[in-house]
């Protein structure tokens, strides 16, 4: 089959590799019909993520048709059309039983590796380094899906791939980030980063009743998309973020701040310049400019919600501000399985049409080009959908 293979920093290529096969009884093989590049794939592409190995197949946002199921999978059959959550979960452990799917105890074969770094291991993830399992990803023609009786979610015939493929990650991720803000009447939610997850944060926060959503970025087409989604925008390249937020909230500050940027923030300030030097020299793993600014701008007693992916040890976090203002911090990889049904309903009821975020649809063969324009924010690229 054809698959997008990671060969090193800024080096990906489409190769012919062996087809996956059923290994465990709860496996299924999915023939991928639509797959996407995620903003978090850029952390791999940019060489920020440790434990990548040349030859790894990338991709964790994919959907398709069930080709084959293992003997223990009884709820799926050949021909079913499914979306596949990027988190892999066994369904039976303490965490899965409490809907904390992305904390599954049993799905990361390299749990020992993550334990050394984090104390305990999160769930396995598709195509996202060996720290989270080393599973072959979905930017490919076929994928082996472990615990296929838990993750894959059958999609009604009346919805197209493009309408539902973001259920695999970015829509639930944006939605969970907004839900984590515990939005009350009259609330202002500020969102750092208007990439695909940020866009879904904006729309989800409004769906969940925010009075005002403020979106912060410096890429014109992303700010434009945020505005179309109902946000007030701040262009951080020519506006003072803190001052504008104060003005927009009558001097109170946002009730909740969402960092939808993660480990590779860039900024216009001294701390951002220092981060760039340190991460280049591998003195630090993360550039946390957006996170710092979100902590500082959040009102007292407010909520900091972090869907952006961090890797290890971001530097110079203003923990004093966090503590003294009594902020609530909510974060985590998305518990995707929890959101599949309710968000599919939102799509069916036309309360949201996730297709708004798609700017490019390309064949899988052009994935290396797609990575390049996505990473460089060229050609107005915000979200790439790939067709194997």
């Amino acid at each position, binding site marked *: *089959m054809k*698959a997008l*293979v*990671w*060969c*090193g920093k800024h*080096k990906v*290529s489409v*190769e012919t*590799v*062996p*087809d*996956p096969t059923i*290994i*465990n*009884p*709860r496996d299924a093989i999915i023939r991928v019909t639509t797959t996407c590049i995620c903003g978090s794939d850029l952390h791999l592409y940019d060489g920020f993520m440790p434990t990548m*190995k*040349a*030859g*790894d*197949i990338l991709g964790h946002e994919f959907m398709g048709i069930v080709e084959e199921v293992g003997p*223990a999978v009884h709820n799926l059959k050949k021909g079913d059309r499914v979306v596949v959550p990027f988190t*892999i979960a*066994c*369904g*039976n*452990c*303490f965490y899965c*039983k409490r809907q904390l799917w992305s904390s599954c*105890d*049993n*799905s*990361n*074969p*390299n*749990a*020992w590796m993550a334990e050394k770094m984090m104390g305990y291991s999160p769930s*396995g993830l598709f195509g996202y380094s*060996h720290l989270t*399992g*080393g*599973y*072959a990803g979905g930017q*490919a023609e076929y994928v*082996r899906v*472990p*615990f296929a009786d838990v993750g894959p979610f059958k999609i009604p015939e009346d919805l197209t791939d493009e309408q539902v493929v973001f259920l695999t990650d970015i829509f639930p991720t944006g939605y969970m980030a907004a839900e984590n803000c515990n939005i009350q009447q009259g609330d202002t939610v500020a969102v750092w980063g208007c990439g695909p997850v940020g866009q879904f944060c904006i729309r989800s926060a409004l769906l969940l009743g925010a009075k005002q959503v403020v979106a912060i970025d410096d890429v014109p087409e992303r700010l434009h998309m945020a505005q179309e989604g109902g946000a007030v925008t701040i262009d951080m390249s020519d506006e003072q973020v803190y001052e504008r937020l104060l003005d927009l909230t009558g001097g109170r500050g946002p009730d909740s701040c969402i960092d939808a940027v993660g480990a590779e923030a860039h900024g216009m300030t001294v701390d951002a310049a220092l981060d760039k030097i340190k991460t280049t020299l591998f003195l630090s793993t993360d550039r946390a400019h957006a996170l710092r600014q979100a902590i500082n701008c959040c009102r007292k007693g407010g909520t900091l919600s972090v869907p952006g992916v961090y890797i290890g040890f971001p530097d110079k976090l203003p923990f004093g501000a966090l503590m003294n203002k009594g902020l609530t911090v909510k974060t985590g990889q998305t518990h995707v399985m929890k959101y599949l049904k309710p968000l599919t309903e939102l799509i069916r009821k036309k309360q949201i049409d996730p297709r708004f975020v798609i700017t490019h649809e390309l064949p899988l063969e052009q994935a290396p080009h797609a990575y390049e324009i996505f990473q460089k924010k060229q050609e107005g690229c915000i979200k790439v959908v790939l067709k194997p």
Partner: protein
Amino acid sequence: MTTYANPRNKIKASRSPQAETFNKKGVHVRRAYTVNKSASDLFDFWRNLENLPKFMTHLQEVIVLDEKRSHWKAKAPAGTSVEWDAQIINEEKDKLISWRSLEGASVQSTGSVRFIETGDRGTEVRVVLEYIPPGGQVGKLVARLFGEEPSQQIQEDLRRFKQLMEAGEIPTSQGPRGTCGSKKSRRTTS
């Protein structure tokens, strides 16, 4: 040689919950995992000692000889193996199993597993394992059974027990890989 009919005593005596040494005195490992299954399910699986090689990768085979006695075979480097006989020395239904190698066995080995129900958190499985290799060639082989990090390897064995019990299978990321231009085949485990 001490037997650990009551592993709790041993735990109290230890400085670290995962104390591990591998010197003349052998391998000593203790580790607890909480498994989301009833004590009775876990006890039954473990009590059939022939199941142990399903999650303990250093074991090749355990053959149950009678109600108490069993024959153990462990993989040793270079395709060889080390074998010994063991017997169950203490057993409380759904609570405790402990075993030790028979006198004169080539490998002195003891182990115990205790199952403690916690209500809604599952069952705590507390394992103590000890291997004391003899001198000579067999001792060298035994010393190499577990590689350089015996504690880590045995902990991984116990994790596999939890995975097998909770998920019904042991996860693997074995699967296709790219070559990035190298000629070497890349279908490997990670």
